[in-house]
């Protein structure tokens, strides 16, 4: 009876130890990344103007958010809504006015839709090369990566005299073709149907979908999704490490079960049992090192649970389909190679532990006979 209880306790302890190591990493990865700016108190009682990029959508409403230090269970940096009394925005203006008052940190841009009271992580934005995949549920209008030339004045108009009449009828001016105009920093790589690939030399790192969308918000819809291929690369390169973390848990469980089987035989070797315990300890101790080896991209993380597999499947599936449409196999090959390496890592770890456990059990049985 005691042995069985001890086995259950060991399983529980392994699970608890595993989650103790993993949960801070999950908490860190699930925190919303924010580019926070300080609202300085000018001291002269004047309001300051900030870009409308700071207006973030949540529940069909545009608001400005601030960050503050949480208390109790919600300690650390937390997101809260800035009181509407503290800012003013008129829909026809391209800026928001922050009312004079105390100093505080407001969210200039964020990696995802804000969650009130959610944990946030302040990041410093740097610049770097990136490629954006623009996906729209409908066909995207032609993308132009140079601003249109504007001619001032001009006398071209369609129309003419109708003989015998005092009335002049003019043809209506032709409707301009709808088009998406890219900012100067971006170059169009290719475009097909509802997908476009755009490269940028000095893109914001980390990638915030909302800030990129904001740069051409006037010519694309709200339901357009923009993905960073750098982030896709980051996610795929993390997969083998994640597989390693998962393997550590499974291998610890296998070793625990094996130790239970070994100790069920009379006259079992204490050395074998000790080796099992040491191996479990080593596997659990390796977790912090494994977890330090990767960082997941904020733009591809689910909003609620990190284990939301359907979210990853949907996002990666969409990216793969879009890239296939563009006849670009980079993402496909990245994903398949990362999956292959991950499966290999899991297979090697589990096979090695299974072989070791089998030998230990076989030896113990042989000795007991």
């Amino acid at each position, binding site marked *: 009876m*005691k042995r069985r*209880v*001890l086995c*259950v*306790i060991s399983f*529980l302890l392994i699970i*608890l130890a595993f*989650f*103790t190591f*993993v*949960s*801070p990493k*999950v*908490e860190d990865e*699930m925190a919303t990344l924010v580019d926070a700016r300080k609202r300085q108190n000018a001291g002269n009682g004047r309001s300051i103007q900030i870009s409308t990029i700071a207006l973030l959508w949540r529940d069909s409403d545009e608001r400005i958010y601030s960050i503050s230090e949480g*208390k*109790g*269970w*919600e*300690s650390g940096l937390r997101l809260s809504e800035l009181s509407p009394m503290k800012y003013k925005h008129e829909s026809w203006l391209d800026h928001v006015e922050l009312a004079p008052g105390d100093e505080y940190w407001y969210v200039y841009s964020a990696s995802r839709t804000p969650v009130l*009271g959610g944990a946030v992580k302040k990041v410093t934005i740097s610049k770097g090369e990136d490629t954006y995949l623009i996906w729209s549920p409908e066909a995207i209008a032609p993308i132009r990566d140079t601003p249109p030339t504007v001619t001032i004045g001009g006398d071209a108009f369609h129309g003419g005299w109708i003989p015998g009449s005092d009335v002049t009828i003019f043809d209506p001016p032709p409707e301009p073709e709808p088009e998406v105009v890219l900012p100067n920093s971006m170059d169009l790589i290719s475009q097909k149907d509802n997908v476009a690939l755009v490269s940028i030399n000095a893109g914001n790192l980390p990638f915030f979908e909302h800030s990129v969308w904001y740069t051409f918000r006037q010519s694309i819809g709200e339901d357009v999704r923009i993905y960073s291929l750098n982030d896709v690369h980051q996610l795929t390169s993390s997969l083998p490490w994640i597989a390693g973390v998962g393997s550590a848990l499974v291998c610890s469980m296998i070793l625990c079960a094996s130790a239970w089987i070994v100790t069920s035989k009379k006259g079992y070797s204490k050395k074998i049992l000790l080796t099992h315990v040491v191996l479990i300890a080593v596997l659990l101790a390796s977790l912090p090192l494994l977890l330090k080896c990767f960082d997941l991209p904020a733009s591809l993380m689910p909003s609620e*649970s*990190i*284990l939301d597999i359907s979210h990853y499947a949907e996002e990666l599936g969409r990216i793969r389909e879009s890239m296939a449409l563009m006849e670009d196999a980079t993402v496909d090959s990245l994903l398949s190679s990362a999956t292959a390496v991950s499966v290999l890592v899991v297979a090697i770890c589990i096979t090695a532990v299974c072989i070791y456990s089998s030998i230990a059990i076989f030896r113990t049985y042989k000795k007991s006979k």
Partner: protein
Amino acid sequence: MKKLRSLSAVFLSLLLCAICVVPFLYVLIASFKALDGEFTLKYYYEVFVGQSQYLFRFWKSMALSICISLGQVVLSALAGYGFAKYKFKGKNVLFFILIILMILPLQVTLIPNYVILEKFNMINTYFSLILPALVVPLGTFIMTQSYKAIPNSVIDAARLDGCRLHEVLLKVVIPIGKNALICTFLLSFLDAWNMVEQPITYLGEFTKYPIAVALASVPPGDPTVLLVACVLVTIPPLCLFAFFNRELTEGIALGGEH
């Protein structure tokens, strides 16, 4: 008539058992239910994976409780041996005081302890929880009663064989009184694991609170998270009881024999 009696005894035991078990079963079942009544693991994710604070506090409480229990076991074993096997002036008075201290509610000693701890600059440190908890009289009482059951002839024989005091304790007395020792360990562990008033009084910072205290302020967003946290809190006492249940019952029975 005899059959009726046994049937009513069984019924009463089942009723008592249900009264004890039903709240725990309710917590366990409700922790898997979403607000709409459907099965979900969302709240377990929240407590075990989503937030690191729950497990960190759990381990913090575990370390604190183990420190207190081990310290109490050592002190109780030594003090119990003194009370059981030595004759000295004022022994009965001291033992009487010990029993009175045992009866006294915890709240009575909170303020004097606070004043003493403040003088030693120990407020807001974990020492303020560990040090006063080391000298709880229940352990000494249990160990005294247990050691009284050991015949003096056994100890004399060990002395004649050349054992010194610490050898008598380690090789003879403690192995014989093992059950009482485990019982003391378990009771002090449960006491330390469930302590609420002491951390609130002696620790000022929320970050230092053990899990039993911090649970009271789980954000009221979703009460099911609290239920899952309660399941987490019950794991160590349940495991310890499942593992040591025979020693615990024997230890308590032995303590009551004298």
